[in-house]
């Protein structure tokens, strides 16, 4: 009977999760809140500085090992925050692109599809990057963390991004372009 109870609990939990997903979908469809307002701009310059390998090498050279580990953990934590924001922004862009997919204009629909694909790629990559950041946080002093990143097969798909950049340009509204990056 233990097995039966376990399966009943599993089924109930699965049903709850599915209902929650269904409810979220219906709420999102009926929501009047602008999706663009959900975008959180990212300071790309600060982000770039955080992940600069030269900056890491400089800190490693200048600081004692224990202090470097502590500083590096803080930097990785901040990097994770940026990456999480980028992932959330990607999720909003996916929804914006999906809304535009219903457009009657073929070019708009095509461009929207490209946007969705691009944003999905960004969302997926942020997941992988976050995983690597958390691994690096466990061993902040290790130089070996970077090596497997170089061989990541995910990057093969990433090359497609360059080609879609032109199409993405069509997606912007010249009147009120939304910024997902903040400049100082």
């Amino acid at each position: 009977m233990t097995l039966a109870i376990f399966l009943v609990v599993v089924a109930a939990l699965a049903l709850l999760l599915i209902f929650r997903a269904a409810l979220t979908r219906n709420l999102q469809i009926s929501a009047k809140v602008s999706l663009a307002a959900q975008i959180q701009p990212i300071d790309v310059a600060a982000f770039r500085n955080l992940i600069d390998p030269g900056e890491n090498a400089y800190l490693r050279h200048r600081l004692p090992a224990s202090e470097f580990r502590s500083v590096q953990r803080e930097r990785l934590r901040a990097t994770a925050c940026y990456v999480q924001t980028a992932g959330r922004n990607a999720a909003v862009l996916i929804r914006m692109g999906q809304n535009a997919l219903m457009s009657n204009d073929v070019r708009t629909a095509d461009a929207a599809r490209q946007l969705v694909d691009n944003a999905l790629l960004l969302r997926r990559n942020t997941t992988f990057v976050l995983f690597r950041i958390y691994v690096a946080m466990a061993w902040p002093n290790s130089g070996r963390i970077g090596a497997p990143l170089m061989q990541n097969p995910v990057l093969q798909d990433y090359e497609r991004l360059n080609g879609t950049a032109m199409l993405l340009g069509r997606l912007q509204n010249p009147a009120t372009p939304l910024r997902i990056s903040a400049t100082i």
Partner: protein
Amino acid sequence: MLQAHSFLWHYLWVAPNVVLLFLSFLLWKRGLREQFPVFFALALLTSLGHLAVYTADIAPMVSAENFWRTNWTSLVVEGLLKFALVAEIFAHAFGSYASVARLGKRLIRGVGVALVLAAALAAAYTPQDGLFGIVSGAHILERTIYLIAAGLLLFIFLFSRYFNLQLDRRTFGIALGLSVSACVHLATWAIMANGKVPNSVRHDLDFLNMGTYHLCVLIWFYYLLVPERMRKYPPMNPPPHPLAGVPSEEDLDALNQEMERLLHR
């Protein structure tokens, strides 16, 4: 009222299958058969299979053994079609997005293998219920099918939720109906396959199964045939341009370049 061969029992066994048969006819008439070929096949064959099992149950000339053979055949066909339908739902949900389709396929295969192993383990540890092998085997097969189907459907819902991808209305309706059916049936068959369950409880669970199936058929009917309401905007506020507020090319490019750099580190 909740007795075998009561009016409600006959209604719950026959009505949803007639409605499902009618739904498959409407799908064919409206040209939706090409869009959802597996669902069309499931609607047609499942309803016919259930009606055949019903006929075998009430016809006095059909022996108990032949009834269970008919039930087994219907069950196997239905099970295979359900897995094919999960694949169809997956293809509709993610097939057109190359960037996640491959990852999704890998993950769902992994989840599928894990679920098959879990179902095999559950079957191995199921205590004997004292019924004939052909009967208890059918119960275990039901539970196995629903365990795998529920797990795969849950994965599809969670995966699309993570990527904020919205399933189109019809795909969503099919997935929702199948999920409700899979989860409730998993729970009921988990109890029924375990033996030592009094007959009165078995009858109640039978009614719960039939009622859930009826509900699922109505969900499919609603989502497949009732058109979605168009969003209304006040006359002074025309609908926004579908691409209003979408970020600039430079923004996305810069972010993507940083992500790539981060992965290269």
